[in-house]
């Protein structure tokens, strides 16, 4: 590996992590196409690298969110049952598919994600289920208002079904799945956005770990690709969280929804 390739991997991972964190998507959505299109890495190895990057960013983010008491641990653990089942089947399925098939499924996912990115901005709920109306009651301090927000969850079985699908996509394609889980928790269960995002972030590391060893056992982990990419994504995600607090998100969402559409076409024709 030339020093240039090494630097490109760290910087590319960093950019994927930064944009992913700014948009609330996680780095995997950008890291997999980067490794597949720029480094011409086999799809299974790109997905495996992304799964490890998802574990790293989720764990680093969750460490902060758990201590700030924003994560609903009980709800997260219940939903984890279905996401882990989905992820295990996703990982097993991925290793039965060809790289080209995986690439086309990933391209289709990018189309869905670019649509969801725009759709969710207009449809997120501002209200939430009251603490005595549902199950898994919890509360957290909202930093922006200084108020304690108490809430509970409704229609958990439906959200579990969404979590199962999100877990399956995570194991199959190496993305976190938060783009599906956060809207489901917010719109179906009535969980406040901040708690939904923190709980989803807490979950995706466990979900990713459920399929990581499948890729490891199939020899898809290349340490010389994974290490710099993971370190880049990890650094980038910290930067992304800081930047996202300072800039307005809607224009960014439209721009990157367009970028994802272009990447999707490239992945289809790969």
């Amino acid at each position, binding site marked *: 590996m030339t020093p240039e390739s090494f630097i490109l991997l760290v910087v590319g991972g960093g950019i994927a992590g930064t944009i992913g964190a700014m948009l609330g998507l996680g780095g995997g959505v950008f890291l997999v196409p980067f490794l597949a299109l720029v480094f011409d890495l086999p799809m299974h190895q790109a997905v495996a690298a992304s799964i490890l990057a998802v574990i790293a960013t989720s764990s680093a983010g969750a460490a902060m969110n758990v201590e700030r008491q924003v994560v609903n641990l009980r709800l997260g653990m219940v939903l984890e049952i279905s996401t882990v089942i989905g992820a295990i089947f996703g990982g097993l399925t991925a290793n039965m598919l060809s790289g080209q098939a995986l690439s086309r499924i990933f391209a289709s996912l990018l189309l869905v994600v670019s649509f969801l990115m725009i759709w969710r901005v207009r449809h997120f709920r501002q209200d939430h289920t009251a603490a005595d109306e549902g199950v898994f009651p919890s509360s957290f301090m909202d930093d922006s208002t200084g108020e304690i927000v108490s809430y509970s969850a409704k229609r958990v079985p439906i959200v579990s079904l969404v979590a199962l699908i999100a877990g399956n996509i995570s194991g199959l394609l190496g993305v976190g799945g938060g783009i599906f889980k956060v809207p489901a928790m917010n719109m179906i269960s009535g969980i406040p956005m901040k708690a939904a995002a923190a709980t989803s972030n807490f979950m995706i590391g466990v979900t990713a770990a459920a399929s990581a*060893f499948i890729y490891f056992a199939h020899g898809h982990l290349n340490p010389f690709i994974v290490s710099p990419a993971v370190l880049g994504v990890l650094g980038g995600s910290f930067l992304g969280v800081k930047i996202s607090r300072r800039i307005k998100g809607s224009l960014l969402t439209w721009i990157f929804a367009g970028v994802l559409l272009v990447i999707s076409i490239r992945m289809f024709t790969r």
Partner: protein
Amino acid sequence: MDQAVIHHRIERWIGRVLRFGVWGSAGLMIAGLASAWISESTIRIPAENPSATEVLRKLFSGSVDPTTLMFAGMVLLMLTPFLRVLTAAAGFAAEKDRRFTLVSLVVFAMLVGELVYSLR
């Protein structure tokens, strides 16, 4: 002890486990990359990825070659969520919440089952 205090204590422990996993694995990966660079003045990518059994054999034998160091970081990273779930289970048990201790242990058992199935 008050339930809320115990719950907060669980959250702090989970936070510590996560930090240890992330920074420990990042440190091992950096050490592996750095030693590859120092020993060969370049980073030479092997033609084939080593098999999981070969990696685990080297890890347990205490080998500290660059590739094994990076794999040690990757394995620690992959095991961090396992520790996260186990810490949550221990915490729920301390809270005497049997239902969620069981839920956490079910998740942990699924993760271990997948690990054993993959590496069998």
